[in-house]
Every structure is written in C-alpha cells, then in structure tokens.
C-alpha cells in the first residue's frame, strides 16, 4: 500500500524534524527520573527507610498528577474533583483488605464478592470502579465548560466525600486502617524498597501511556478539542466522546495512584477524597508545567519536598508554597519543566 504511492509525495519530507534525544529537555527528564530511582535505592541500603517511603509518596502523588495532567493539560478539562478517583482507589484497597482480613464477603447479593488482599485484584477493581465513576461524572460534567465544569466536578467529588464521611461501616470520618499491606505473588510488598519499585513502575507506565496516547490519532483529536473544538467538529469529529474517554483514562490513572497510596500508608480516610487534595493535585500540575509529560513529576517532587522540609520548620509552610506558585504563574508560565527544559513544541 505504502510503496504504491506516488514517488513525488514520498520524496518530500512527510515528517517534521525529530528532536534529538540528548537535548536539554532529554537530559532534564532522565535526571529527574534517575534521581527518583537512585536516591531511594541508596537510602534503602544505607538503612534510611523513611526516605524510601518519602520517595514512594512522591512517586504516587506524581502518578496521580499524571492522571490529572491528561485531563487538564492535554484535554483542557479543568477538573477540580480528581480527589474522588484518588479516594475511591484508596477505599477499594482499604475495603478489600478489610474484608479479606475479616473473611467476610464485601457483598452477598446478587452474587457473593469476597474481599481480596491481592494487589492485582485490588488494582483491577480500582481501575474498573474509577473508570465507571468517571464515565458517569464526565458524561454529565462535560456538557458544561469553563467555570461550570470546575464547579460541577468539585460538587460531585464533595458528594462522595460526604458519603464516605457518614458511612460508619468503613470507619466514617475516622478512616479505615489496612492492617497488612495488600500483597503480590512472589513479592514481599511490605518491604519498603519493593513497594517503592512497584510505585515507580506505575508512574513510568502512566507516563509512557500518556506519551504514546498523545501521539496517536486519539491524542491528535484531543489536542484539537483543547485548542479549537469548532475546528475539530468541522473536521468531522465530535469533541464530546473524545473528551469523555480522555477524562475516564485520566481518572483511572489517578485512581490507581490512590490505591497505591492507601497501601503505602496502611490507612485510608475521607481526607483522600477532600477538595484540598483536588487542589493540591492542580497545584502540582501547574507547578510542574501544564501539559508537559514530566511536569507532574517535577511538580510532585517540589511539592512534597516543600511540605516535608518547610513543614518541619513551620506549620505555615503553605505560605511559601503559595509564593512559589505565584512565582511560577507570573514568571515561568510553563512551570518548572518549562523553566528547566525550555518550551515545548506542540508537535
């Protein structure tokens, strides 16, 4: 097929000039990912488990932000309710572990569903449930745009927050402990380094999927839906289903991060569902660089480090976070990644 095409077309460059892998951007990206991998490994062998868990925390929050970045940065859908998926993922891990620990079924009708302490089962359930929740919320919310979209996603997330708060079976506002971290066959997930590596793999996978997705036809349509949805419709593609699918994928990524987070802390509570966390994720995405593949990672590193280092000195650390955010918004529009790695071409 391809070889049969006229030679005139084939001769002329059909593709733009490709980026060199050793550009400034490439170096910054490899450094970020490399440090995130090497520092906890080193810390582990030096016996500083605390830092391994800190790195796991950064990794998971970065992954949640990767999910949100797909909606906000690539899809132009400013969701102020991604805590709903993060929290739901967390509760799936918590509730599943609770029933597995108790040997009680999660439900008995119409079919009997037992709890499970197998991470693969937990992740699958978290992905499916977060996807379905996002499908329902997105189907309604995406009929609005702008400020209304922000508010309606916030409203849905708050509904779920108050529901979790007032449901005593699973701890209500006190939250639900996970006594023993959910496990994987052949892997000791209670080992801090093993668990970090699982989280790291999750983050890398989420970023790889985002990257690949945005280069595909679906990504091209999503980019056009963000930049100019009239052009997309005029070209014969309805923006609504494209946005909805992107919203669902985004929620699933954030939800899986939530499941990892609950197992990291051994605890899940309505805090994971609160609008504060939705806001924190947005701050991370903006800090790192909206619509940049490595933006959520850079943002999460900066955010968690500030929280840990400044939070140890003063409880008013968020004042400094605010100042940094102000600086980024005013002086580095493309976030930390834009500042470190230069502007990104939109190709």
């Amino acid at each position: 097929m391809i070889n049969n095409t006229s030679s005139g077309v084939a001769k002329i460059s059909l593709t733009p000039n490709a980026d060199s892998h050793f550009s400034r951007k490439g170096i910054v990206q490899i450094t970020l990912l490399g440090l995130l991998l090497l520092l906890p490994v080193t810390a582990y062998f030096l016996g500083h488990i605390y830092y391994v868990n800190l790195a796991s925390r950064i990794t998971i929050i970065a992954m949640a932000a990767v999910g949100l970045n797909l909606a906000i940065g690539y899809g132009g859908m400013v969701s102020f309710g991604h805590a709903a998926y993060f929290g739901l993922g967390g509760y799936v891990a918590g509730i599943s572990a609770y029933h597995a620990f108790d040997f009680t079924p999660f439900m008995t009708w119409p079919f009997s569903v037992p709890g499970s302490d197998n991470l693969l089962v937990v992740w699958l359930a978290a992905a499916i449930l977060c996807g379905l929740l996002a499908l329902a919320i997105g189907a309604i919310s995406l009929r609005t745009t702008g400020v209304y979209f922000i508010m309606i996603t916030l409203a849905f997330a708050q509904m779920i927050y108050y529901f979790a708060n007032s449901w005593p079976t699973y701890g209500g506002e006190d939250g639900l402990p996970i006594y023993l971290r959910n496990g994987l066959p052949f892997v000791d997930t209670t080992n801090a380094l093993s668990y970090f590596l699982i989280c790291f793999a999750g983050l890398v996978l989420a970023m790889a999927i985002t990257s690949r997705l945005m280069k595909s036809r679906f990504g091209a349509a999503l980019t056009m839906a963000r930049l100019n949805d009239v052009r997309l419709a005029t070209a014969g593609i309805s923006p609504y289903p494209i946005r909805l699918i992107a919203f669902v994928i985004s929620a699933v990524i954030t939800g899986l991060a939530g499941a990892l987070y609950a197992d990291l802390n051994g605890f899940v509570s309505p805090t994971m569902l609160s609008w504060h966390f939705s806001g924190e994720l947005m701050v991370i995405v903006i800090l790192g660089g909206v619509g940049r593949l490595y933006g959520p990672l850079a943002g999460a590193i900066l955010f968690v480090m500030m929280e840990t280092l400044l939070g140890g000195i003063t409880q008013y650390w968020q004042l400094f976070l605010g100042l940094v955010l102000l600086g980024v918004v005013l002086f580095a529009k493309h976030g930390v990644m834009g500042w470190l790695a230069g502007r990104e071409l939109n190709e």
Partner: protein
Amino acid sequence: MSDVVLSLHQLHKRFGALQATNDVSLELHQGEIHALIGPNGAGKSTLIGQIAGNLRPDEGSVFLGGSEITRMSIAQRARLGLGRSFQVSSLAEPLSVMRNVMMGVQALQSHSFRFWKPVARDKQLLEPAYEALERMQLSHRAWTPVSELSHGERRQVEVACALALKPRALLLDEPMAGLGPEGSAKLTELLEALKVEVPILLIEHDMEAVFRLADRISVLVSGSVIAQGDSHAIRQDPRVREAYLGNDDA
C-alpha cells in the same frame, strides 16, 4: 434535477420578533460556484449556521447529496461531506499546518479511538493531507505553525482543511475577507480550479470576486432571497440595485 448537491428547502428562522431567515430555498449544483450576497444584517450568518449545523431552522430542511441533514450535528455533516471555512479564521494556531489539515483526513478514515499508532509516521494520514495542501499550493508550508502564516495563507489552509474531508460541497464564508488584491486574486484562481470537482457555496463581500467567480448568485435581503440568477442578470436587476448595490457597496 440529479446534479443537485446541496439544497435548502423553505428555511425559516426567527429570533424573537426578527425574522432572520424567511422562506429561503437554494440549490447548489455539481460543478458550479453559487454565491450568496447581501448587505450587512441580511441574515447571511444565520443562514450559514443552519447549513453548517450551528443553528436549527424553525421550519424547512437542508439536504446534502440526497440525505436530509437538517438535524445533524456539525461533525455528522462534515463526515457526510460538507466542508466549510469560517469568516474569522478558525485554526489551531500553535499546531503546524499539517496537523490542522490531518484532522479532516482522520475523521474520514473511520473513528478516532485509535490509541497506539503515532500519527507523525502514519502515511495514511499524511499523504492525503499533503495532497490537499498541494491543491491549495501550500505544501511548502506543511510543517510551519499556523501562527507564523500570513493572513492569506491561513485562508488557504482553511480551504485545505475542508478539502481533506473529500467534501461533496464546500461552504466558504467570506474567504476573501481581509485579503489584499494580490491574495484575493490568488484565492479566486484556486477556487476557480476547484469548482470543477467540488461545488462551492460562496458567501462573499468582495463583489469583484463574486462577479468573476460565481455561476449563479442569490441575493439575500432581510432574510429573504430577492433575486437569483447569473452575474449579468443580478447586475441588471433593479431590486438588487436598490437594495444592495445602490446603497453602499456599488
């Protein structure tokens, strides 16, 4: 007649007390350029909206190639073969020309739920887009971001985007707007070559271009078509002279 590509049947559209479209019927035939002219406020934009799908008529129907499209969405109409350009250029500026044009090709090749294969190496997308650009003599700008193009080049990209759909009919809304005499002449030439394959419904203010290009002209005044005919007949029509040419644009 079998060579009717796009037809409007007795369209009515009312906004409150204003009858914006009043019993408008139009036909676009194979191989022709049909121009729609009219003074400001005549209801041209409202009419275009009903053809393109932004607005629904209160009464009447729109047909494209034999199928009724009156209630279809913009995207459905586009997939059926209605290509359009906008009065105010509507392209994704940060993207390259190619990426803008490729959208139409993508829509044509079934759905967009393909998540894996990169478009940057997808010859099935690139080659038809490239062809559409060549038709508009713009292939040398394929990888230039739209934001760096001149106004006239953007107009050509708009038409190329519409061509990428392999349209049955083109709806061009003031393609000459804002072009200098040179750009206007070039676009006129390109459109003249194009009409053999795709009939064009042309909404245009530039009377010189209209009289040169159009095989038939419909004159819209206060929501109604007051005259229809070739450029000679329109020039002579006393009602048209009174309502339109005599007033401001003559």
